[in-house]
């Protein structure tokens, strides 16, 4: 998946209309980010990549890049 498409789809999945996602976007610094968004990330990663992330992995996520690393950076292209 192209990175720019990933950022758009992630933004849509997490329902943050006013946030521009980049690799450096830190989830916990987004106003309104909470435990429900962890569920949304699970659903997003499952539906787009068929991958299951554990709770431990999910709570270790800091920025968007760390999520991409968990998904597998080989799944992304410029």
């Amino acid at each position, binding site marked *: 998946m192209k990175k720019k498409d990933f950022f758009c789809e992630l933004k849509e999945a997490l329902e943050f209309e006013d946030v521009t996602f980049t690799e450096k976007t830190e989830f916990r610094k987004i106003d309104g980010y909470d*435990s429900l968004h*962890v569920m949304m990330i699970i659903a997003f990663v499952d*539906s787009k990549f068929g991958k299951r992330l554990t709770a431990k992995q999910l709570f270790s996520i800091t920025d968007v890049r760390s999520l991409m690393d968990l998904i597998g950076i080989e799944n992304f292209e410029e």
Partner: protein
Amino acid sequence: MIIETFFPQKKLTNADLETIFPDWSASKIEDKVGIRERHIAADSETALDLAFEASKIALKNFDKDLIDFVLLCTQSPDYLIPTSACILQDKLGLRTNIGAFDFNLGCSGFIYGLALAKGLIKTGVATNVLLVTSETYSKHLHPGDRSNRSIFGDAAAATIVGPTDAEKILEFDLGTDGQGMDNLILMNGGMRHKMEDKGSEWVDESGNIRSNNSLFMNGPEIFNFTIEKVPLVVENLLRKNNMMLSEIDYVIFHQANKYILNYLRMKIQIPKEKFYNNMLFTGNTVSSTIPIALKNCIDQNIITEGNKIMLVGFGVGYSWGGTIITV
């Protein structure tokens, strides 16, 4: 199949939660988890009391002397010993030459209850089974656990399963994986770990106050479990009953929360109009969500006589299961 429900009078609204937890948004709770309010048992009101009230309503139009087995699903018994079903038999004035026992399951409980009832009836052990699901998870929650307090509500449902009903309960698909025990657990209070006088508390990653004296739920792992197992149950049920999804008139899953149900529906590709997703005024009532949904659907003519309904429950244990019934 007679189904009746009972809810405690006291309610906890999203506005109440917003007052208790100022950074919690009432509208967001409703939008995401699909719950506006949940009923909460009073301090003196137990799951047995709720079971009694629901059963009384169910028995209003059914001769109680015809009940020859009581199955009570609860994880909030009045006593460790004796089983609440025996007390319920006495309170309802049922015959004494009948069977009765509790079984300890959560959100899969109604499905297992149907499996037990069908088995008892088909083998001639019983003729009319009173299957009661009753839960007061609110009593297991830490007051500072805003996530779980937003989700769970208290309720009971009483279902009378007779010989004709048993014929209309088709094949089951059941599953168990105790490796998931740590992800939904009330650690203290059993024989392994006694309830602590002043249990240690900690704040989890989502800002909830946790304690081993209270129910712990690892939401992400429970979601992972449902994503993995529920589509398989649906697939297995269709295969075991030699049916296609298009032949199912309506699907009722355990009402966990709106977001999880929406995602499962899309993943399994169940048409929206055939799928129940409504816990707005009750919350997640654990083992009672499926009978509550069934009753609502029948009362509102969403499902009608002859319809084939797929039921799937999943949760604590891990325990899961499904069946197809004809109403």
